[in-house]
């Protein structure tokens, strides 16, 4: 019997438009999330973090790693917005990393995914993967549209849980990662009762971030 994990994936846009304050804010947000989770024994025992980025291509910067062993990655922003490759990498990571319940083994908890993007996809493949994620529901996905250039309608095709960060200020990113941390803690607290996959409840989003209906 191995430990059942709460897998947490962060899928971050690192295209050229994220250069400067946005990418620095994402980096410090991930560090803040990590420090926060180190303060919660349930998260230390069950939450596992992975960071996937997409620019010209997608890269899994950190494979699914327990909180105590996690090292926040160095991120640089450049290139186009190959959103499709990011989604493809996410699905591939699910297949490679996650344990589903079988007759002999209890599976992981349903993964929690946070998608950050500030732009519109530059590739043409993304709708295929978005449809797979939306229809197969392999995860609870929360997508955040960063700034006024982000295409909310694209994110809506991945998940119904889309939130909007109007201004890409350091404070807005900080508030968003605090929301991520609260969501992970809440999900790992209530893991005994997440019914029917789609029905998770999340903490209220912080000020400056609104839920897109």
């Amino acid at each position, binding site marked *: 019997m191995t430990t059942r994990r709460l897998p947490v994936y962060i899928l971050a846009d690192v295209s050229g438009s994220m250069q400067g304050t946005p990418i*620095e804010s994402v980096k410090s947000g991930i560090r803040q999330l990590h420090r926060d989770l*180190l*303060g919660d*024994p349930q998260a230390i*025992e069950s939450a596992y973090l992975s960071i996937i980025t997409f620019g010209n291509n997608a890269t899994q910067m950190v494979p699914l790693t327990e909180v105590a062993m996690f090292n926040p990655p160095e991120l640089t922003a450049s290139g186009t917005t190959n959103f499709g490759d990011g989604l493809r990498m996410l699905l591939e990571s699910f297949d490679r990393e996650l344990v589903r319940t079988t007759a002999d083994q209890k599976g992981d908890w349903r993964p929690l995914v946070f998608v950050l993007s500030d732009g519109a996809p530059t590739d043409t493949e993304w709708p295929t993967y978005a449809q797979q994620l939306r229809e197969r529901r392999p995860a609870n996905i929360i997508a955040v549209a960063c700034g006024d250039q982000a295409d909310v309608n694209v994110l809506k095709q991945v998940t119904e849980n889309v939130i909007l960060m109007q201004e890409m200020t350091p404070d807005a990113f900080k508030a968003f990662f605090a929301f991520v941390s609260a969501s992970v803690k809440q999900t790992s607290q209530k893991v005994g*009762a997440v*019914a029917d996959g789609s029905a998770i409840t999340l903490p209220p989003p912080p000020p400056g971030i609104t839920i897109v209906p």
Partner: protein
Amino acid sequence: MSGSASEQPEPSATAASAGAVEPVMPPATPAPADEPLPRPATWTVKPPDAPWCPEGRLDAILARLEPAVAARFRDRVAHARVEHAEGHGRHATSEAWTVTAAMRRGRRHAHTGAWSDDAFFASLSSHRGVLVVADGAGSATWSRLGSAIAVDVAGESLRNATDVSAEAMHEAVERAVLALRNVATALEVAPRELRTTLLAVAWEPDGTRHRLVTTQVGDGSLVLAHADGTINRPAAGDGGEWSGEVHCFVPDDETMTRARAATVVHDVPDLAALLLVTDGIDDPCYPFPRFAGPILGQLLHGTTAPLTGLGVQVNAPSVITAADPAAALHAWLGFEKRGENDDRTLAVALHTTASHVIPPWAPSTSA
């Protein structure tokens, strides 16, 4: 402990001003990468801070329960600090049977000062035994009331039923559903806020045989152990591809459909033991039928080595022959396994033949 964690730099409190403290860092980087990480937090134990039953709602709840149920509920509210915080146990014996049940609050709830969501009912007379366990859904606000009322109503219904039958079991579950819906009305919340699992068994001697009825709504496990060592799990638990996802709880609309499908009447020639557990035990001991024999072996004969899958277990003599079996079972429920920090409830019934037919568990016996 929490005290040692707070000696470390406060990540969230200082993060905003860290840019000013270390001028080399741009303001967009509130938590410098080379700042030492806080020491990982460890478990603490806090008594529950909220009242067990919402204050100001007790009279409304009592008014909507049958008088006998209401009287027991009033008692339960008075003893909640004893029975629903750290946990408690019960033990009873008859000529042919021993029943022992205990609930232990999980580390997650202890750390955050929350109540246990589990509950159990145990009753034993010379002619009938009844065991019921329940686990309130973590996502439901008043699930601790749901599990407590469900075990009481279903347990008493089975205890007082004219016979041990499928009809008696259906009636017991139906009464629990009605009671929970009435309490939801009293609390002015949706019935889903009282969601709980429910596993129940009632049994009677029938000559040298036993007649039983069992049912299950939601996750957890209920198994029968026979004199030849075989374990029979009459109903599969409700679960899916991922951990912890239950499709139907009491008092959801589909409760009776699920309960009818899961109700089984058994006529058993060689019944040795019955074992009921909530998911706090069922999850670390998956698949449960494989663990049931070794667990019964430990409870009957003592723990001499940790059981594979249960993490850190303390050696202890037999739970059943202890001076206080309920307290000994509560202690047995304290095994420590990474990530498995839910409330734990176990109810066991042992026939007088059990200690002869169920062997001690030793590491060479594969789990």
